[in-house]
């Protein structure tokens, strides 16, 4: 007849836990918990460099997925004839919108490449310690920013 004894002990323990919880509640623990400020302003949250690198890796990947059909159209047209090839080469650098688009796209590609290489190195346990990982994240972010800057200068 061991089961009822265990069950009774369990009930006693449960009552005790409830009592302790109630005591904490009276003390004001629950009240204080409810009054904690909620602070969710995305512009003021400071993410560590690794988190910024990661979210930009995703964002650039999403952008690159979206422009796959554009790349295929360009490949098709560039291979169709010499005239078409020259027309593409002439028009791709003209117009503010197309230059901006091209610079952003190439920078996204370079950034995605660099951030991906960083992850492959991390997978191989290279630079896995936090300080090194933060530094490589900053390096990758800087590479992307410099790429965007240089592409902007080159295209203008």
């Amino acid at each position: 007849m061991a089961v009822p004894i265990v069950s009774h002990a369990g009930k006693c323990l449960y009552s005790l836990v409830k009592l302790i919880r109630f005591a904490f509640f009276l003390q004001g623990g629950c009240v204080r918990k409810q009054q904690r400020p909620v602070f969710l302003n995305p512009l003021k949250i400071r993410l560590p460099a690794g988190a910024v690198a990661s979210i930009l890796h995703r964002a650039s990947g999403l952008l690159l997925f979206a422009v796959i059909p554009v790349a295929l159209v360009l490949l098709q047209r560039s291979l169709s004839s010499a005239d078409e090839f020259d027309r593409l080469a002439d028009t791709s650098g003209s117009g503010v919108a197309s230059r901006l688009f091209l610079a952003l796209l190439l920078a996204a590609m370079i950034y995605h490449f660099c951030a991906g290489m960083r992850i492959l190195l991390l997978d191989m346990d290279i630079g896995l310690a936090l300080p090194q990982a933060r530094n490589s994240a900053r390096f990758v972010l800087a590479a992307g920013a410099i790429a965007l800057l240089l592409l902007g200068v080159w295209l203008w």
Partner: protein
Amino acid sequence: MVGRAVGGARYGLRDWLAQRVSALLMAIYMVFMVSFVVAHRPLQYGDWKGLFDQAWMRIFSLLFMIGLCIHAWVGMRNIFMDYVHSTGIRLLQHVVVIVALVVYLLWAVQILWSL
């Protein structure tokens, strides 16, 4: 996570590996393409067309496209799994991505072999 053993589905490692292998393949292709364009600066139609007339380049490009499809599928699925919590909408997005990628792949085959 309720009542589900870790690693029970067994697709996590395979997708993780597929993402890495396809990334390496695409990285090699991109490095090759950039060095080709830099070596033939300013790029002329003859060089460009000549490159894609070679059988090995067509196969290399097709491998790149297959890698791209696998990589994009894993990446897009990860994004949807993290941010879209409605099962119905997520399923629809998965179907749209898969159909789009299959179309892109067939389109690439057509570009590479029928011109």
